């Protein structure tokens, strides 16, 4: 199945980036980049250091503002002033090893910066958290997703890799987030932890979540991606289904030795 046929089948893309550009002084980090992302699709975003991958993802996540271009989420044009606004539209960013805070417990991590206040209006006004309600909804949420976990008060530091993965999945899915941006999520991780990150991507995909996956590791990219986008010197130089490219060709595209498209 090629990309265009898939596009017709899946309707509106969940995320569309149109003619995005961003410069830092004289450095043109991202130049006129466009692409679409569909529900349940994983895009592997690759390129050499300084190719503009992280800048591109920061713009989509609300961390940076583009100079020109549009970000269209679920068919509507959006501009994000900060990461909170992007999160409100269902865009989550996941960094190094699942972006969890090990010294906080499960419920605290799932509700981090999305705390529930209350239960009364006065307490909401006083910004007092409704902790028991948050713990209850975490338990309900995990049941709904069919994930088993220790009590919600357990610190994430005490969880196994698989359990942490479940917390990270819950944090994305329970909030109805449907776009996840992952910037080098498996850099400097061991074999076992890397496997947890990669299967995290696969499980998100199974939940219908769309993922942009940045990595320098071609093996990881080829394993999890449906489509691969290559950036070089700020420009998109390649965009095609995974089956259309080999690891060798990818390396050529990244370094500029090969030109396809």
């Amino acid at each position, binding site marked *: 199945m090629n990309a265009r046929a898939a596009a017709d089948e899946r309707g509106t893309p969940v995320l569309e980036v149109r003619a995005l550009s961003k410069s830092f002084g004289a450095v043109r980090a991202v130049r006129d980049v466009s692409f679409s992302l569909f529900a349940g699709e994983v895009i592997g975003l690759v390129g050499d250091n300084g190719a503009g991958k992280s800048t591109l993802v920061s713009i989509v*996540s*609300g*961390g940076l503002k583009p100079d020109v271009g549009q970000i269209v989420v679920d068919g509507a044009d959006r501009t994000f002033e*900060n*990461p*909170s*606004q*992007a*999160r409100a539209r269902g865009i989550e*960013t*996941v*960094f*190094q090893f699942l*972006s*969890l*805070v*090990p*010294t*906080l417990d499960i419920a*605290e991590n799932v509700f*981090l*910066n999305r*705390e529930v206040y209350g239960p009364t209006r006065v307490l909401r006004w*006083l*910004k*007092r*958290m409704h902790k028991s309600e948050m713990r209850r909804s975490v338990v309900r949420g995990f049941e709904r997703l069919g994930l088993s976990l*220790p009590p919600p008060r*357990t*610190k994430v*530091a*005490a*969880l*196994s*890799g*698989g*359990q942490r993965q479940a917390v990270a999945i819950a944090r994305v899915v329970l909030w109805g987030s449907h776009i996840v941006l992952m910037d080098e999520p498996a850099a400097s991780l061991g074999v076992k932890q890397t496997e947890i990150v990669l299967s995290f991507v696969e499980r998100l995909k199974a939940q219908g979540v769309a993922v942009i996956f940045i990595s320098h590791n071609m093996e990881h990219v080829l394993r999890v991606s449906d489509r691969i986008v290559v950036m070089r010197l700020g420009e998109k130089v390649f965009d095609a289904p995974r089956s259309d490219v080999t690891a060798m060709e990818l390396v050529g595209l990244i370094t500029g030795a090969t030109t396809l498209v």
Partner: protein
Amino acid sequence: MRIARPFINWSQRNGLFFAYLGLVLFFALSSGRFLTTSNVQVILVQISVFGIIAVPGAMLILSGYIDLSIGSLAVFVSIVFGELVVTRGMSTVWATVVVLLIGLSWGLSQGFLIARLGFSPIVVTLGSLAGARGLGEYISKGQNQYGFGPGFGELGNGQWLGIDIPVWVCAVAFVLGAYVWYQMPYGRHMTAIGSDRAVARSLGIAVKRIPLLLYGASGLAATLGGLIVTSQLDGSSLSIGVGWELQVLTGILLGGVAFTGGRGSLFGVLIGILFIGTLTNGLIVLNISPYLQNVAVGIALVFAAALDVLYQRLDRIPVADPKEEGQPRLRASLKLRRRQR
């Protein structure tokens, strides 16, 4: 067993609490003058200034920042207060308001440099430590001002319901601190910032505004501390604030707040501050050379480093999930806990 486990958990994480009880017991048995009402009052008044400053101080360290300027800021505002009241003839109430504003803006300026512009927290507040004291020395020209009248004396020496005013102020600081830390979402946010700033930022947490406001609060607390001591002495003296940063920092770290940020509890900080205050007082009561008191504080700091390692290990006790992974490897010291399950 079921009832015992939370208690065992709690006591492992609050080992300092029992160490503190041991310390009190030791001093009480060594000297009849230690556990008297008047001496307990002395301890509480002495630690209340450190306690007030430790509340925002602990939050800063939890978020991965630090404020070393507190003692110097305290002496600076004390000198300015003396100058305003004695030389300029300003009323003590107005002078109090003015120096509180000075302390707040001093703290916010440091916060701006550190949180907004990304300057190093240690370097900026170290500069402040030297600079604020220097400014105080320059303004005072080495001369102390005194005689602020009985009204202002109430702040440091007055009582309400039989308890000294500074102790009340300290209690209010801790209650407010506990609300911000545990009832509002900021304790979690500070923990996240201290644990991994990039992750906190991607979650939309105010990684710049929170430390900025904490530096403001720290400046305000240091000013309040300086004013309380000025009131107790009924004079602005260059001896105020010497070594405060060490005392406060030792209390915070003893209380289990990780120096690298990302972990800590306000209850622990309270015990840590009590521990340091009781230790120095007990050594005085036992007539031990004042030179050795700093040695005791130093040893307490090293003890705090040991506690930090213990807490890190306790955090990592795995939750058994034999289906998912092999039996977790357990350290000898932790085996006991598993047997009790």
